[in-house]
């Protein structure tokens, strides 16, 4: 392959510690100390290894709770792997569903805050602003607090924030699924543009036809393990067969 490595996952494990009673801190401490029965380790990912190259658009499928979202969080560096290693060519941007950064503030302010946190200057933000506003097509709703937004509106805004800087690696978690047809068309167009610039994209979605249309490869994750890795058609056909049977 002529392209360089964008992401390398080596035997990645992610464990969550869950407690029978979250509020009993003393008991929690004691449980940690004596490895008691109250705390339980949940293995969200159980040893995932994969190499993703620049210019790939990777579709990740699997049933609810299979570890797909955890995989994206760990690649974005928002969640530390409990074992194994995650390495990336450059810092990925994650586009999630519940991406209201500050729900009590307006959409406009959320764009500002997100962009400032990403390290943009106010002058840059102001010059991008109309472009972002047009892309979201939210119009006057941009002045309303984000808690009043529908999930589709939120994801329009989130998509715009995440792609302000055109990241080298973009991770999309179900965010396109809640948008309407027109917005989906627009974001898929943007994704193709990014792909032709050799940007790397990983998308998690239950919308299989979207994966068929856009992805170059598919990963199937089940119960924290990599079940299948291969051609989109091959993986999706088998996945569909299994979920209908």
């Amino acid at each position, binding site marked *: 392959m002529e392209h360089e490595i964008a992401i390398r996952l080596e035997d990645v494990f992610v464990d969550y510690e869950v407690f029978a009673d979250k509020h009993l801190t003393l008991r929690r401490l004691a449980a940690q100390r004596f490895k008691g029965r109250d705390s339980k380790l949940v293995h969200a990912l159980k040893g995932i290894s994969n190499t993703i190259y620049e210019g790939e658009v990777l579709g990740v499928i699997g049933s609810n709770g299979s570890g797909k979202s955890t995989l994206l969080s760990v690649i974005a560096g928002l969640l530390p792997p409990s074992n194994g290693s995650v390495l990336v060519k450059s810092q990925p941007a*994650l586009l999630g569903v519940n991406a209201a950064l500050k729900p009590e503030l307006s959409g406009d302010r959320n764009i500002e805050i997100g962009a*400032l946190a990403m390290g943009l200057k106010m002058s840059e933000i102001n010059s991008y602003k109309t472009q972002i506003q047009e892309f979201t097509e939210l119009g006057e709703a941009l002045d309303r607090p984000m808690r009043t937004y529908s999930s589709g509106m939120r994801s329009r805004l989130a998509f715009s924030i995440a792609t302000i800087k055109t990241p080298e690696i973009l991770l999309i978690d179900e965010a396109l699924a809640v948008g309407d047809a027109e917005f989906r068309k627009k974001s898929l167009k943007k994704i193709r543009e990014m792909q032709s610039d050799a940007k790397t994209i990983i998308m998690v979605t239950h919308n299989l036809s979207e994966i068929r249309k856009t992805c170059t490869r598919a990963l199937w994750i089940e119960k924290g393990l990599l079940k299948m890795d291969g051609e989109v058609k091959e993986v999706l056909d088998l996945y569909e067969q299994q979920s209908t049977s």
Partner: protein
Amino acid sequence: MKAQKKANGNETRSDGLIKPGHHGSLLDYMRKIWERREYLYQVPKHELRSQQMGTVLGNVWHLLNPILSIVVYAVIFGVILKVDRGVSNFVAFVAIGVFVFSFSQKSIITGSQSIVKNRTLIRSINFPRALLPITSVSTEFLAFLPGLAVMFATCIATGANPKLSWVIIPALILVQFIFNCGATLIAARATARYGDVKNILPFVFRLLFYGSGVLFSVDAYVTNELMRNLFVLNPMFNILELYRWAILGGSISSVELFALAAWTICLFYFGVFWFRKGESSYGA
């Protein structure tokens, strides 16, 4: 195996890959916060504005609040109680005590929640997390500015003449800002891990309030020399002493200056260092 793990921990690798969400050395970390300095002004600006949303007077309250507190203190201590033992200009004395103390108190108490309250932001975007507690301090700094103006107005109105030592006030504010950042970083990480801290902090500050001589002159009440020396260990006491010395005059010992400098440097260094150790855990 261990050696390999160590190699992965380094930021520069032969294949040019990096760890996601990793901000490099302590110096790189500080540089990345500096790059985002506009955040430290823009977010507090909206934060303060939204605090007064739904009020008729809006931002005027940020000025009106300190004025009203001064009026209350002037009435209680200047007219009713008259507990001005050992202090010539008691209203100014109290004004400095209350505003300066509450700058630190509010910074640290609201900042301790900065990780917990910004989980969605943390889970969506990668940036040095220390930006959040420091933003709380800068929010309280902006809120402190009208208080500062009221404080000076009170001092002048009650007969304190402007003096040369006023020029060191900005330096003093800077020191207090850095001190607050250090303490807030520690409080933020502690609160992110143990929610209990939220319940403890108000008591710590109530204790500090009485132990810093916010409403009384320690020198006038504490005659035992050993006891008096113990107060110097309290950084808030030293901050108040310095402000009062700079604004109202009087005497100051180099021990207090030294103690505050030591506290500020140690607290800030330890705060950044310790907060950064938990960096990857804040999204969980």
